[in-house]
Structures are given as structure tokens and as C-alpha cells.
């Protein structure tokens, strides 16, 4: 699904499903990241190179939902995808730490 350039990419919500587990949430985060990378017209190799990674295999690891975006490169990851780092981190927190996200931001629009 292609998005308009200025369409809000942070409007996606978690599926209305009772407490998905950490693994499922990481998969959802990975799908979201993959879509954002596609929007930025970058390959996994491009993104890895821009993040200073020797191999792009870690990008795949994250996008396949097996690992998280490490906090120390979250800002750079967001910038390379053309996204605002704070909004990017907040959106990922919804998947990685849903309870913390709920406590910080409540049940407002993600």
C-alpha cells in the first residue's frame, strides 16, 4: 500500500486483539518498519549502510520481528527513514513496551 508523501505514518493502531504477546508485537513493529523503509525507497542494504552497519542482516532481523531497534540508533534510524525521531520512538514504544506507552501517553491516538 503506497502512502501519500505527507500522510501521517503514525496513525496505525494495534489490532483490537486482547494483549498480543511480545513476539507478535515485535512482528507488527517489524512490518511497520518495513513499510516505512519502503516509503523512503531504501533497501535493507541502503539503510544498513546509512546506519553504519557492516551487514544489512540486522535490519532484516528487526524487520522480521526477532529483535528491536536498539535505543542508541533509534534516532538515526528515524532520520534515515525521513521520520521525526520522537514520534518514531513513541510509535515503536507502543509495540515494544505497550504498558509503558499506555502509562506515558494513555489511550490517546498513537
Amino acid at each position, binding site marked *: 500500500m503506497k502512502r501519500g508523501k505527507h500522510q501521517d505514518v503514525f496513525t496505525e493502531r494495534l489490532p483490537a486483539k486482547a494483549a498480543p504477546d*511480545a513476539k507478535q508485537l*515485535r512482528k507488527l513493529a517489524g512490518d511497520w518498519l518495513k513499510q516505512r523503509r519502503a516509503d523512503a525507497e531504501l533497501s535493507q542494504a541502503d539503510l544498513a549502510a546509512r546506519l553504519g552497519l557492516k551487514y544489512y*542482516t540486522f535490519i532484516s532481523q528487526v524487520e522480521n520481528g526477532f529483535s528491536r531497534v536498539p535505543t542508541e540508533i533509534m534516532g538515526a534510524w528515524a532520520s534515515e527513514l525521513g521520520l521525526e525521531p520522537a514520534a518514531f520512538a513513541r510509535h515503536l514504544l507502543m509495540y515494544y513496551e505497550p504498558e509503558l506507552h499506555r502509562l506515558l501517553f494513555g489511550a490517546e491516538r498513537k
Partner: protein
Amino acid sequence: MSVVAFERKLNSGEWSERELGTILAALDKALARGREWETGATEAGDVQFYLLGPLPDQACELCVSRVGRSYILEDGTGRLLFEHRNLDLVALHAKAAVPSTSWVMVRAITLWCAIRSTLHEKAEPWLVEGEELFVQFVPQLAAFA
């Protein structure tokens, strides 16, 4: 008729049984401790093997990827641990890199600390009370002696 020889992309698409067998044999102890594994691929079709941590999080602890003719070993944070063309060597490094903390041991230590802390909280007032009594009565007992 001449045939142009294209370089064959080595073992692309999926892990061979031998490759998987090598990795699983190296990680057998880790897998026996409640870990699971899955496979996947990069967008370029390079295969990946993920060793997942214990429940409930099941985050990736180690990842072995085959890119071209090389095998790449990374941890779950993307740190490159080892790379080589020889999978046996990579599997050996993977075996050594498995986090060895026993969760049973961690839980046992946590439980022991909790019990000790509770006992300490309950016993401390008695000890203080006993000490005060002792301080009060010792001079009197000494006087009688």
C-alpha cells in the same frame, strides 16, 4: 552453441539440512534449556537462523545469516560476533556466545534474596528489643553478682 556460465548463487533460498544440522548440533544445550529457533530471510533472499530466548519475550539472542559464501554471526542487538566461510567455525562461536545464565538459577537467587529480606525485616525488631533488654538487665545482674 556456446553457453554463458553464470556464477551460481550458492545455496540460496533456504538452509540445507547439513547447515541446519551443524547449527542445531552446536546449540543443542541452549535449545535443551527452553530456547526455540526459527528461520527467515532478508529481502535479498539470504537465509537467517534465529536463536530465540526463553518465554515470554522470545527475543533473538543470536542470528546466523548466510550472505553469499559467508556466514555471519550477530547477537540480538546487531553486534557482529564472527564471520567466516566455514559454518563449523561459526557454529562454534555461536555455541560460545549463547548467554549461559540459567533462569532457574536467577529465580532461585531472587527467591532467596526475597526470603532473606523478609526474615531480616521481621527479625530485626526482635533483635533490637532483645538488645535493649540486655542493656537494661546487665547492670542489674552485675550488681547482684
